[in-house]
């Protein structure tokens, strides 16, 4: 499956963040301080026009993150 199709198939799914180890430290700190920490549930809500950034929902808050950052997350699927 292509990367595009893979991300599209993730829309609406709810994942649990296992770790953010793959993110560089400065990025990890930004994520932590915004409440994006391991154990939280994350939902890919939609893809913005032109394919990037992605709109995600964490802690009842909406964030726009780019695909590189999304691929840094270690995720485990919880439910759809």
């Amino acid at each position, binding site marked *: 499956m292509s990367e595009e199709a893979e991300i599209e198939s993730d829309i609406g799914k709810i994942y649990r963040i296992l*770790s953010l*180890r793959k993110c*560089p*430290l*400065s*990025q*990890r*700190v*930004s*994520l*932590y*301080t*915004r*409440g994006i*920490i*391991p154990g939280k549930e994350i939902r890919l*809500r*939609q*893809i*913005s*026009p*032109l*394919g*990037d*950034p992605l*709109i995600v*929902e964490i*802690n*009842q*808050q*909406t*964030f*726009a*993150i*780019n695909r*590189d*950052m999304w691929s840094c997350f270690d995720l485990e699927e919880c439910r759809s």
Partner: protein
Amino acid sequence: MSSKEIRVGIIGNPNVGKTYLFNRLTACESCVGNWSGVTQTACKAKSKQGGHYEVLDFPGCHAIREYKPDIAHQDSVHDLEQQIDNNQIDVWLNVIDIEHLEKQLYLTVQLLEAKQRVIVVLNRIDRLPAISKNIDIQQLGKFLNTPIVKVSAKLGLGIRALQSTIEDHLNVEQQKHDHYPVQYHASIERLLTKTETQLGHQATRFSAWSALIASDYSEKPPAWHFEPAIAERMHPQHLMTDEMTLTRFEIIQRWMHHVVTKKAATRQHADKHWDHWFLHKWLGLPLFFSMMLLVFWISMGVGQLLQGVVEPLLRMLVIDVPGLLCRDFAVPQVMALLITQGIGLSIMTALSFFPILYVMFLALHTLEESGYMTRAAVVMDRLMRWCHLPGESLVALVLGLGCNVPGILATRHIPNHNDKVVTALMMPFMSCGARLTIFAVFSSVFFPQHAAVVLFILYVLGISIAVFTGILARYTGLVQATNAETYLLELPAYQWPSLTVGLRQAYQRSQRFVMNAFAIILPVCCILALCNHIDIQGNFLQIPGDQSIIASIGKGLGVLFAPIGLTAEHWPLIVSLLMGLLAKEVVISTLSIFYMQMTDPLQQTVGTLATLWQSNLAEALENAQRWYAYFLPFIQTETPNWALYFNQQHISPQAVMGYLIFTLLYFPCVSTLYATARQVGWRWAGFSVLWSTLVAYLCAFTYQMVVQIPLPLYDALWLISLGGLCYAVATGLKWFIRSKKAESAPPQVAP
């Protein structure tokens, strides 16, 4: 209390309502909005009640000392950290949005660890019923061991209670809060205590934490890293930053179980619904452009309608009536000239922009306050990334089409400094409203059949040069490209904009702009009026003309402007370009002074008060009756009488087109220059001036060459030459910058 100035600092995450609170506590009207980064620099003002303490509003931050290298508004963050390190703030008001309590308590914990005196302000309590949450404030107060006050800064609820809490807190003898709300693992606690001792008696838990996490950024791990107790506790791939940050969140989450008792996702559902359309894969872009078009259509339509009604009345008040009084009371000519064409004309020119600016700022505030502006940045992000710019840049550039100054000011949304610089360099090429007026007047006189086409060409040319500048800046390495990895944007919740706040904010912003413009226009109009009536020998000229000082200057500069089609006989146009350096709004008023006096020098002094009142009122009423004309999709600019003078002087359309191209692209006005310098520094502002003037001259010159050799082959050759010239400039600049960087790079050490 000591006699020194007492300082109360407002701190909190971005977009939690800090500035609303600041405005409530002081008599200020600082700018507010529903997006992160409205406040860029710390603002301070005396408190409302007796003013015995000073309130400081700091830009929003998620945490103190994030160690993020490309963090936006770095200076203000540094300033905030200094205030904490040096204990310069007597009480911190830590503003927290009740909707997202958990993540915001992280900053509170940091403040308490830094032994700061903190009052937690839970904002937006009016939202509590809507979000179906119940917050046990007493319980939270016990965990944090600090006072907690509930307010709604926007609606003004709980402000009195907050003020009395501040007073009480200040009256209590200064005692440092030694309560650390978070207990780390025993091994980490021992390490923190040891570090605190090493740092000296002024050290806090926070300074010890800062010292420990600083080691995460060094290449060599510190000695404590190998201590068995710590190594056992920490995850193999975790650093001290991860360990301590996650412990803090673990404790905060535990508190949340006791403090927040009810949850519902009502708001999220509504936001989701709106986002579905505004961020839609196919509809997102058309909706964005429609929204921007709507803003301009409304602001130009309503603004011009108001302008059409207000301007004749204003002219009567500030030019005609003073002119009549001067005539009747036999005021000396020089004085009369200064009163009518100096002061009067400058007031009219400056104030005539007020309606358009007011409506535009109101429309933009509505978009910002509703939460759409951040979505607009998301929608445009990918498109702008092709120019290595974030989506926020496009929002700023679109605003620049109204006026470059708000456009430049809107670059504060852009998180990365380099992106901000490129956007600021592109901005002068976006045709602002003042330039639109110049184009509309000239195109309606010289190209009556193709006025819209001429305008369109000028707009497209401006945008193309802006894009070219952006690409050139990146291609040559003049401004380094941003690392796209760091894109993380918090989308604010949608909300209904408050009309009263919007009206007030739009008034503040447009008033500030008009006052700044007036400060420039007034001396310009006075000097021009005088120079236009005095000859080189110092004699006063009854009828201004070719003998005046200003005409001599304009004619002298004709040599410089000859390659772009303007010769000595076009001196009024040359002088208007010079005056346009101060403000583009002055260009038309300069021309009106010259040509109006040439066509009818006695125009200002005829008639009586009654006839003037009748004619101006009739004009205002006529404009009001033609209200629909302002909303039509084509330009309804009326040609002023003085503009007809051009044809009598046989100014060729080619010369006018060269003039328009130069006006479109040359030096941004001083207000834009000042705004650019404030946002990105004087060095870049200076570069912007040089670059835009060079490009303007080259483009106008090329146009003249192309039209003077009307053979398609030569046209093509000139266009190719221009392309080649651009490429040569780009390559030369790239080579120059690389060689400079290579020179300044540290020498390589051989292994």
